[in-house]
């Protein structure tokens, strides 16, 4: 019984994720490998000090400059959630990511979000 129920529940979850991905920018657990190419350059300043490339990698587990082969929102999620966790520890960070999706026009993402009045 479990040998049937467990796979079925996995598949229902995945189908749900595939449908959910139609309404959000992220692509978690919905099988969208290598569907988007994002090249980016990020810089972060924490408590007034600009992070070096090595410090950036240690803090966010991503290189400060590189490529990502999934939705760019996955990268932003990691940066944003890492800072949300450290906010309680007293860190105040600003992050700027300059990026291009599939080689198109340059865009910019910032943390804290310019229109966000919560965490600063």
């Amino acid at each position, binding site marked *: 019984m*479990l*040998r049937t129920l*467990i*796979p079925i529940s*996995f*598949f229902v979850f*995945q*189908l749900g*994720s*595939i449908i959910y*991905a*139609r309404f959000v920018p992220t*692509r*978690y*657990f*919905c*099988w*969208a*490998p*290598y*569907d*988007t*190419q994002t*090249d980016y350059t990020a810089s972060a300043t924490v408590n007034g000090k600009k992070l070096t490339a090595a410090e950036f990698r240690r803090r966010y*587990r*991503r290189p400060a400059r590189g*490529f990502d082969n999934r939705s760019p929102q*996955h990268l932003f*999620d*990691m940066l944003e*959630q*890492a800072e949300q*966790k450290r906010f309680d520890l007293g860190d105040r960070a600003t992050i700027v990511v300059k990026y291009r*999706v*599939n*080689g*198109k026009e340059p865009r910019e993402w910032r943390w804290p979000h310019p229109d966000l009045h919560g965490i600063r």
Partner: protein
Amino acid sequence: MALASSRPSWNPLKFRDPELPTELLILVKVLALVVLLVNHVRILPDPWLPFVPGIDRLPPVLFQRTLQTVFVISALAILFNRRVRLASLVLGATMLLGVVSSKAYYGNNKTFCGLMFFLTGLYAPGRKPWPVQWQLGITYFGAGLNKLLDADWHSGVFFQNWAVHRLHQPWYIALDSVLPPMLLARLMCWGTIVTELAVVPAIFIQSLNYWAVCANILFQSGLLLFTGTTFTLFFYSMTAASLAFVSWPKERITVLYNAGVVDRIAKVLRFCDADGRFHWIPYSEPTGDWLHLTTGDRAYTNFRALRMIVLLNPLTYLAIAALIAVVPEFSAAAYRRTVVALCLFFLMPPLASLADWLLGRRQAAAVQSRSLTA
């Protein structure tokens, strides 16, 4: 004559297990060998921005070391034929736990590989491995649908940027320069979308499974040939999933051979047959064929028989996976491309059929010339 069912052997080159059929045993042993050879254990994560809340409250070093220890023990257990089904379940669970515990580790390739282990671990003896088959179908469905609904895939923008600016793919750039702008990019994008979505019904309709396996192997091999990369574990896991659609012969396979013609080849093939799957019998009297193999209701002769002997030997898949995974430091992409191209060339159906056809023509011509001389 059925294969002798002895206790599981410690010999990693043997493929016998009381709980898993040969095809699933090959699937998990190939993937276990790969994860060990590419040293995947080094990137297993500590909890960091987990998908499941609370995992990051666990002691990170203890969590990571436990994951790594269980991972290596389970992979070794699979290779050495120790409680393979249970070890697959545990190894799959370890990888899936890694995926949900860290956004830095999360990846489609790791998720799919973990699912291959886990779903094989849930196999119920005597039944079809439908969860593994369905997983492949859902993966292709998700991948195809996402591309179908993406404007950059409609216009070819994705592929143009990827092939030219990211991969610097020389064949693509050369061909693109002589074709109308974006034509090649659109063809590649739409070719991918159509292939991925067309594979889905072929996976779920049993009579089309043969085509699903062919399409899956050719598509994944095409990706590797184009990019030179395995996309971490994706190439291995996706191609290995094809094994869930085939049934290995349960009986020993009788091979009739002409000792005068293929004695040395027969000796090598017998040496590589660690499980004793083939029963070699020399022809008692000369016939037109130098090799003859029957499995189920199908018979193969000469080069086609030779191809089937290689394909029905589980060691073939272990050897191919090891060859691709153990990449030399220099020119890794060229090396992988060469290995995969050679495997496709020698093991896909056309070469053996063509060789038999040519040999048949030569023999017919020789017989005709002898009768004319007489």
